[in-house]
């Protein structure tokens, strides 16, 4: 299955107020990171239905990143706590169905952490490169 030209397909679902702003700040600071991740913006990580993530894996995503505000900093008070709870639960589901739970990552990057966003990007890509293509890929089409 491992194809030499394989490039990881990673989707990041990120909140408008902290992580999306942090990602923009990384741009302003010209912090360079690997170009393998595509972002989808939501207002809050609380919006993220675990089914979105399962859908992404079903579609053949090699990794999914969820990134929001730090605890206590959520623009909507507690959406990130609720998202984190759901992600913990979802990680255990992934593990139980035989998908490495490292393919799903939740991070907390604030609007002022452009450098951290760059580090998260590099680290996620590195992790997924080590894991290789998702075993669900062959069901995707």
């Amino acid at each position, binding site marked *: 299955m491992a194809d030499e030209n394989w490039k990881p*397909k990673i*989707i990041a*679902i990120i909140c*408008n*107020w*902290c992580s*999306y*702003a942090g*990602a*923009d700040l*990384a*741009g*302003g600071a*010209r*912090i*360079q*990171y690997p*170009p*393998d991740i*595509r*972002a*989808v*913006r*939501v*207002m*809050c990580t*609380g*919006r*993220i*239905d*675990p089914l*979105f993530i399962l*859908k*992404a894996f079903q*579609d*053949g*995503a090699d990794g999914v990143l969820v990134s929001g505000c730090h605890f*206590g*900093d959520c*623009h*909507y*008070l*507690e*959406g990130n706590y*609720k*998202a984190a709870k*759901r992600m913990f639960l979802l990680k255990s589901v992934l593990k139980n169905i035989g998908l490495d739970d490292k393919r799903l990552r939740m991070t907390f990057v*604030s*609007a*002022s*952490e452009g450098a951290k966003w*760059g580090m998260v990007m590099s680290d996620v890509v590195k992790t997924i490169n080590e894991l290789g293509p998702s075993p669900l890929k062959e069901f*995707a*089409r």
Partner: protein
Amino acid sequence: MAEVKNKEARIGVFVCHCGTNIAGTIDIEAVKEYAKTIPNVVVADNYAYMCSTPGQNKIADAIKEQNLTGVVVAACTPRLHEPTFRNATAAGGLNPFRFEMANIRDQNSWVHMHQPVEATEKAKDAIRIAVAKASLLEDLVPKSVPVEKTAMVVGGGVGGMQAALDLANAGIKTYLVEKSPTIGGRMSQLDKTFPTLDCSQCILTPKMVDVYRNENIELLTYTEVEAVEGYIGNFDVTLRKKARGVLTPKEAEARGIVGGGCTGCGDCANVCPVIKPNPFELGMAPRKAIYIYHPQVSPLIYTVDFDACVKCGLCVEACGEKKAVDLEAQDEFMTVKVGTAILALGYDIYPIEKKFEWGYKNFDNVITSLEFERLICASGPTGGHLVRPSDGETPKKIAFVLCAGSRDNTDTGKPYCSRFCCMYSLKHAHQIIEKIPGAVPYIFYMDIRSFGKMYEEFYYRIQNEGAKFIRGRVANITEDPVTKNLHVNAEDTLLGRPIDMEVDMVVLAAAIQPSAETEKTRRLFGVSCSQDGWLLEAHPKLNPCGTTTAGVYLAGVCQGPKDIPDTVAQAEGAASAASIPIHRGEVELEPYFAQCIEEKCAGCGMCVYQCPYQALSLVEKDGRTVMQVTEAKCKGCGTCGGFCPGGAIWMQHFATPQIVAQIDAFLLGGEQ
């Protein structure tokens, strides 16, 4: 809530060069040609600056000519130009919410500058994802809500006072909330101000009186913000009025004490047997358990320090018929409704004893600049006579250590410039030359940053007055145990030689940091902070007074170090910004509300507990239980929509089919 059909979607894609910001990395032509092949795209175009008038006209014209149902602009970030392109979309006759942005600059060309091929592929994907969403976008109408015609300013320093005065003078009822018993803030602790050498109190106290007398300002001293609910136009702020133990004349009247209440005579403090250090004098002078900070406080009302009070009752006796002292007072809570709020939370001095190499708190004659201000101030603990704490002698040779803890990337310092230390240290040098015959100031500096109007001229003046400048950071300070003189060890980097200088006194121009209350208060108002704790403005250049929380604005040092003129200027800006929604009378909220898809709703009510704003409730409708959204309370986070087990919640503009379409477009669309 019918799901939007995308069969008739006609999308226009517009790719921006942003000069060379995007075009320098991404192959615009290739991206545009690719965009034409994406399903639903009927037109793709490109332009050097899409945000310019010709760029916006391209969008409006294409909407009309091509009968578009949705617009995608691939450019910078929606956080910058979403409003611009929504306006352009509306100018073309389309609902502005039928616009979606693909971020190909901030999150692409700028971060993949050396990978043009990969960046171009990423841009294609981003546009495909945006087109998928734009194909499913629906018409939305912003909700207009009325704005409460009152404002709140938190913090009663010079910035908060200025903001409150401006709002009040614009005819807006303003609550000015201050945690300490008096307004005035840090500025009231200063002796003179640079570069004009105005006496700080002389220019501040008239303002304090203005605030106290202004009938549009409700001054709430010794009061803290306890909770904040609501949104722009309609904040409910709960305040804790700390037990003061002393009644104002108004409060006394309310209790039926005729002609009673505190007149500020001070008879109570004269008899009080408890002595505590006065924090206003940084502990260098005493105060009683019933106290005022200094004679010019506003309001001139005494305060009981209940942690220190022994409840002997002598003050009650001394107060006599005025019956102002109430030793059984309790904290009181009140809730006020305000339309907008300004945070002017100020700063604290960095605990410079953490830089142990300079010996602050270990060596008697090492003091901070703020302590110097009190010691040189005519109304200070020494009546303006600068003395050495160790022996009360007048120092003749004084070293000033600049950037003490500022511009310091170690664990025990702050990376930023505290901005006003250079200037006040120059002023300190001037003051000792003026006041103490034969005294010589030695200023150890990294750079002298005299950036303001008439500041550089002031620097020259101090040089000519005889201050000595030594360019070098102080490595350490040691104390002579007998004389309590200090040895300053540094390197003169201009002469390239080490220095060991014996001085009588060292003044540390300590760094500043956000005030202790900043963290708690910013969280109550939902305002972000930058890494160093200063509050985050909405845009560093174009919106320095605003925050990402609509209706909350920033004034003064809480947003970043600044001197008095800059603080006052920002306060006036914040007051102007905060008055706009109030004068307009209504604001438009982004219509990202949750909606219940009633045929799917099972009425389980789990979403009700997910909502942080109590916006959801269960109602009976046609014989079954369904969820109902109170739009005025919904802020559009979507936490309910992320949770609903039945998929019965439609998040406007972030609806499940729209997000799933984005996921599918990336992973299943394009070249596999």
